């Protein structure tokens, strides 16, 4: 029934919808009907732009996933790494269960480096 989606994929999809809407703007679309959709799309876009997903690209994500597959991580954990892009080991702790027991300090540091390399949260400056 369920397939997990990363924030990036959802953002891509929203852009897609907007593009298609622009293309068919000439056709008459009843205004009331799409009000719900417009609201939710606007809110979603606003939210996702403030997350690391706004700056990710498919190649970066693919490379990141390739590198991180060296470590044993659950699918949900990899997804969280993508969505949250932790900047420190402490943040890693909250995302990955039993981080201390499963990975050594070096491995954890390496994971943080990989995150900042491929999923750079440059948005930090815009948020403040």
């Amino acid at each position, binding site marked *: 029934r*369920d*397939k997990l989606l990363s924030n990036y994929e*959802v953002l891509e999809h929203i852009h897609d919808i907007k593009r298609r809407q622009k293309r068919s703007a000439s056709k008459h679309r009843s205004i009331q009907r799409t009000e719900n*959709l417009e609201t939710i*799309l606007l809110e979603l876009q606003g939210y996702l732009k403030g997350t690391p997903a706004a700056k990710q690209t498919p190649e970066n994500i693919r490379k990141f996933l390739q590198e991180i597959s060296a470590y044993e991580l659950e699918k949900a954990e990899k997804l969280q790494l993508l969505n*949250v892009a932790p900047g420190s080991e402490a943040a890693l*702790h*909250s*995302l990955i269960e039993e981080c201390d027991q499963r990975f050594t300090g070096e491995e954890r540091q390496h994971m943080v480096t990989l995150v900042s390399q491929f999923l750079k949260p440059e948005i930090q400056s815009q*948020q403040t």
Partner: protein
Amino acid sequence: MFVLSKFSDLVRIEPSKFSKSTEEALEDEINAKYANKVVQDVGLCLCLFDILEVGDGLIRHGDGSAYINTVFRLIVFRPFVGEVLVGWISSCSEEGIRVRMDFFDDIFIPKENLFEGCIFVPSEQAWVWRTEHDLYLDTNEKIRFKVEQEIFTDQSPQGPKNILAEEGNNGDENAQQQMLLQGGSVQNIAPPYSLVVSCQTYGMGLVTWWD
């Protein structure tokens, strides 16, 4: 945070929309029906992702619209238990903190789920985490939290017999007025989908504390 859920539904297309292509018409109808709505035990539906199967359109007696059996996938907002999310503090009370995200408002942190050493300051209506420094949890601050529990409340209208028997009734105005008169701070109208979250471990709390 987001999942794809498969839905199967009978979609009705009015004759005025026959000029559009089938996929477009279906997409519009589905989006109109499901966007920004909560489906019990599934989550908050956002928008259509794709259409998997389309049946033949049938037309009923006395109604010119086409009814089409469709199987499609929707993007649904449904964080899993244990997921870490970011939101904004919308209000603080003695019971806990309300958090909102741009598209979803019903997130609550009960006071038990806050850091140890957190105290509520009534004069400022804010929570403070007393460690070596005094860390304030102010409104409109970005906060990171972990999902503990999701609550789905059935919103279908209740029959008249059930009014007096139940407390937290959704549908009946009389019961709600009674509750208001009692002056409780209880929320009469339970949201269809709400999250109980916690803010207790490493990396949780205001984003500015950890970054």
